[in-house]
């Protein structure tokens, strides 16, 4: 039964998006012009191509973020049974996090966190 609500939800959200697009296509007046056709960048005139290269620095941060992001996947199951596993579990999770922090410190010391 609970899957039925999900289905209804999916249908509703699809209808919401499609309805908006179709309604604007049908109702809105269309008078295209040079200014209106240019991509909108906070009211400024766009400069250059939209295909730009991102600084690799972003990538390094994403990489470090990913480590702790995935760590959460291991912490959730532990958090659910934290009372049952008690001190032993706490110590084990502590070791786990310490290893990850060692990695972070390593990256820090190697200069991965310096913004180039």
């Amino acid at each position: 039964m609970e899957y039925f609500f999900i289905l209804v939800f999916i249908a509703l959200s699809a209808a919401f998006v499609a309805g908006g697009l179709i309604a604007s296509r049908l109702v809105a007046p269309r008078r295209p012009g040079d200014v209106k056709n240019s991509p909108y960048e906070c009211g400024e005139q766009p400069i250059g191509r939209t295909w730009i290269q991102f600084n690799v620095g972003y990538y390094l941060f994403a990489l470090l973020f990913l480590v702790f992001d995935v760590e959460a996947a291991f912490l959730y199951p532990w958090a659910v049974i934290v009372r049952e596993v008690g001190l032993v579990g706490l110590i084990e999770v502590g070791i786990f996090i310490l290893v990850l922090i060692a990695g972070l410190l390593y990256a820090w010391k190697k200069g991965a966190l310096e913004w180039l």
Partner: protein
Amino acid sequence: MNFWLMLPELVVIATAFAAGGADLLVADRSRRALAAIALGGIAAAFTAALAAPLGGALFGGRFIVDGAARWFKLLFLLAGFLTVVLSKDLLEGRARVRVRGIGFPGEYYTLLLFTLAGMMCLISATDIVTLYVSLELATLPLFVLAAWRRDDARSGEAGLKYVIVGALASAFILYGLGILYGLAGSTALAAIGRAVAPSPAFWLAAALVLAGVGFKLTIVPFHMWAADVYEGAPTPVTAYLSVASKATGLAFLFQLFFRMLLPHLEAWTPLLAILAATTMTLGNVVAIVQSNIKRFMAFSAISQAGYLIMGFMAPGTDGVAAMIFYLLVYIVTNLAVFACIIWYSNETGRERIEEYRGLARTNPLMALAMMVALFSLAGIPPLSGFVGKFFLFSIASAAGCHWLVAVAAVNTTISLYYYLRIVRQMYIEPAEEDAAPLPSGRALAAVIGALAVAVVLLGIVPWFYAQAHAHAALWTAAALR
């Protein structure tokens, strides 16, 4: 819980952290200490693995130690130790030919040690989770090592190909393991082996896992990545890949066939025989036309993988013992050849086969060591390669696959031809006019000498095979109980 059983792995992991930490702390001048740390750690782990009890289990039977696992661990550690020695000169910038973009010994040894730890856990794992995680720990750092030369396009390309193929292989393995888990309802390998019965789903799962391991072990038709990765990776990494990655694949296949599917192994014999035959034949035939020595060794390694999997045709002590012994021989012999290749490329930067001409005039001892190792790879008596092949062939013969023995014998002859190509360049072709003897570092020369002696000793001293056989017998006694 008897954590002493895990001591070798823990020592290796602690050494990895120590090498990484020391890299942060020591000055650039004293980077040599890093190799010493790595070598000391591996030696300590080797001692610990020798001293550890020959049977026992940890974590509710998810991690076990037995005779076969101990042998695999010792072999992994041996390969790791020798690779560190072989890498030292290049990483510390003591090679005569300056190679750009190589260095960072701290990270290099750390990653190498992590792969070692992964391989050692792999052979002790008795559960899908530990098996898969240790397999990944053993292979992920290898991708980075293959791409080690950051400003060399070929190294990067090798890394790219390796990472794609490796990830694809692990997806295949994981999907197959998932189906096996579904069929058996348990992640313990032994329980899966007892619970599954031959069915279409079982064969699909086994085929997926075998395909994935085939990539790692470079079994034809899953071998195509090997040549490019071997050629592009830094030479010490190629040496490590050729023995360690192969040993990892073999260990995984050991887990799959002997720990999990032992009750069904008979059904696999024909397929294994066909895979072995095609692998050794294709590796040999393609090796003939290669001109780059690293590429040549890649195809030679492919054909050796074909010989290695013949050991799975006898589900018992003899098969395990023959396989372990040949793995030992293969590690020693292949690393002896690679030690010479690394020495030559360090001194001259040359990697083409015809550039080895006249080596016997300028450096007779090096040429002799390389010749002995090449002849052992080809399987000429009384060298160890012959003895190892003899045991493997007798396994295939006992399993009733006489045609496979014939194919393997023909292949041995072909391989003799192409190994002789290098020997001919070294001994018969004249040296260049102004060729002077090349110097060699003390550590590298010592390793090459020791390996060449070991290649001979393993062939004539039966003690090693007897030990492997005895430990394998202990394992079979426990496994078949």
